[in-house]
């Protein structure tokens, strides 16, 4: 029972990270129908920036804040300079461009910070909470990760549902030409969408870096899990991304605990294949089937 509880808690704390990575992918997919293969590279860059800020200021929170802002800026710049030229091109062009960007970012990071994995601090302690005499595998840093992702999700819901900017972004995502007729500057909403997505990605990087360390290719696997979570929840649904992330985190945690950690990546792959075979639109996307 205690083992099950601990596996569940571990699943939740890794699940929220997959959820954040999935959310970053979903935000971009929704608005531009592009799967951002460079997401791992972008969050690696922002996490390295946080690493440098933490090193020079000795403040975790300075690094945290700078990484989120760096995410916003990086997302906007990438959309304007790299994605804008291929937005109207065949989908494969965007795939190639984001893959190229990933390689570019990894090379840049290698030149600046080197190829060695660097350790990254946690927000709070890593000591598990003691409850009724047992030490849980759930620390205040894990709790912070869960709360951070929940808060970000909540803010995004408020933004999309209750603000004019959110309404414009949804309109631009669902029907770009109609949105333009109604005065929405679709180009700006796309830039904002990429900026927000990259900021959520930056958060995912900050939360996962203490356990993976930071290196140019440190987040490749997290992105695979994030993609699996997004497919599970439905690529069009932010809520689906979060639920998909949590479900995947739990599933992989149980797999790792009861079947062995070597089958975890295989498990994520099986999830993707099963979802695509049984319910290709994911758990939370309704309506017409996806084109993919």
């Amino acid at each position, binding site marked *: 029972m205690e083992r099950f509880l601990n596996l569940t808690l571990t699943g939740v704390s890794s699940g929220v990270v997959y959820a954040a990575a999935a959310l970053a992918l979903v935000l971009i997919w929704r608005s531009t129908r592009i799967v951002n293969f460079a997401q791992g590279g972008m969050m690696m860059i922002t996490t390295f920036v946080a690493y440098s800020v933490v090193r020079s200021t000795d403040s975790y929170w300075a690094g945290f804040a700078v990484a989120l802002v760096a995410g916003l800026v990086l997302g906007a710049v990438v959309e304007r300079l790299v994605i804008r030229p291929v937005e109207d091109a065949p989908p494969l062009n965007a795939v190639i461009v984001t893959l190229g960007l990933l390689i570019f970012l990894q090379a840049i990071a290698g030149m600046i910070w080197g190829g060695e994995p660097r350790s990254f601090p946690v927000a709070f302690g890593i000591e598990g909470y003691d409850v009724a005499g047992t030490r849980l595998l759930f620390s205040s840093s894990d709790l912070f990760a869960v709360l951070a992702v929940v808060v970000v999700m909540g803010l995004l819901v408020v933004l999309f549902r209750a603000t*004019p900017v959110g*309404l*414009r972004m*949804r*309109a631009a995502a*669902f*029907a770009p*030409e*109609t*949105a*333009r*007729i*109604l*005065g*929405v*500057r*679709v180009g700006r909403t796309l830039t904002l969408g990429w900026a927000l997505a990259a900021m959520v990605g930056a958060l995912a990087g900050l939360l996962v870096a203490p356990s993976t360390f930071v290196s140019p290719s440190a987040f490749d696997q997290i992105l695979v899990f994030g993609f699996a979570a997004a497919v599970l929840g439905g690529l069009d649904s932010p809520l689906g991304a979060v639920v998909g992330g949590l479900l995947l985190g739990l599933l992989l945690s149980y797999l790792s605990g009861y079947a062995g950690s070597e089958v975890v990546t295989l498990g994520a792959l099986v999830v993707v294949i099963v979802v695509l075979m049984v319910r290709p639109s994911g758990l939370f996307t309704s*309506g017409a089937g996806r084109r993919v």
Partner: protein
Amino acid sequence: MSATSGRGPVDGAAPMLAVDDLTVAYGAVTALDGVRLGVPEGGITAVLGANGAGKSSLLRTINGLVRPRTGTVTLAGEDITRVAVEDVVRRGLAHVPEGRGVIVELTVEENLRLGGLVRRDGDGEGRAAAADRVYTLFKPLAERRRRPAQTLSGGERQMLAIGRALMSRPRVLLLDEPSLGLAPRVTADIMAVVRGLRDSENLTVLLVEQNARSALSIADRAIVLNVGRVVVDAPAGELAADASLRHAYLGF
């Protein structure tokens, strides 16, 4: 039956919306060929013609979605030919696209709010009042405020599309085939509302229709396009009464 000139139409008053020497081509295909027409303020001008006559191209060029090869579009004396589509609506020209163009994933209320976002006077109360006015004009929408537009019937979607355009408080309304796919009675209801807006608010309307009979029932002026050219520009009643013109271009 003279073509009204871009600047000075027959009755001397400058038109609210004018198009002069407009030529639009997609590759080698010419959609509009030297089109010139004026839409007087506070009137309903119908643009009629068969499929492929260039009617939709005309609207899409007026609102900036399509760039013309030559010619100008003038709104209330200002040249808007090169104004981007996102800004045309801010100048007071609202477009109800063909096929209704409501955003089906958004609710009725959200579609209306979206239409009102470009209003600059837009304090919350002004927008709420504008929405209430739309709900008064189109009663069925009022009962479905929180429903996704997906759940609306064809007629209700057309009402929503027109209502959404009205939210920006336009001076000119471009209507693209509002009768498309609607039952005759629903079409008549919608035409009556458009007529009412002209009468009560002096709204200027450019109405593109394939359904010439119902368009002529509310229009003040009628223009017939044939393969990208203006072939008739006359008072609506005159065109409706002229059997040979009707047979030649409108098929009834």
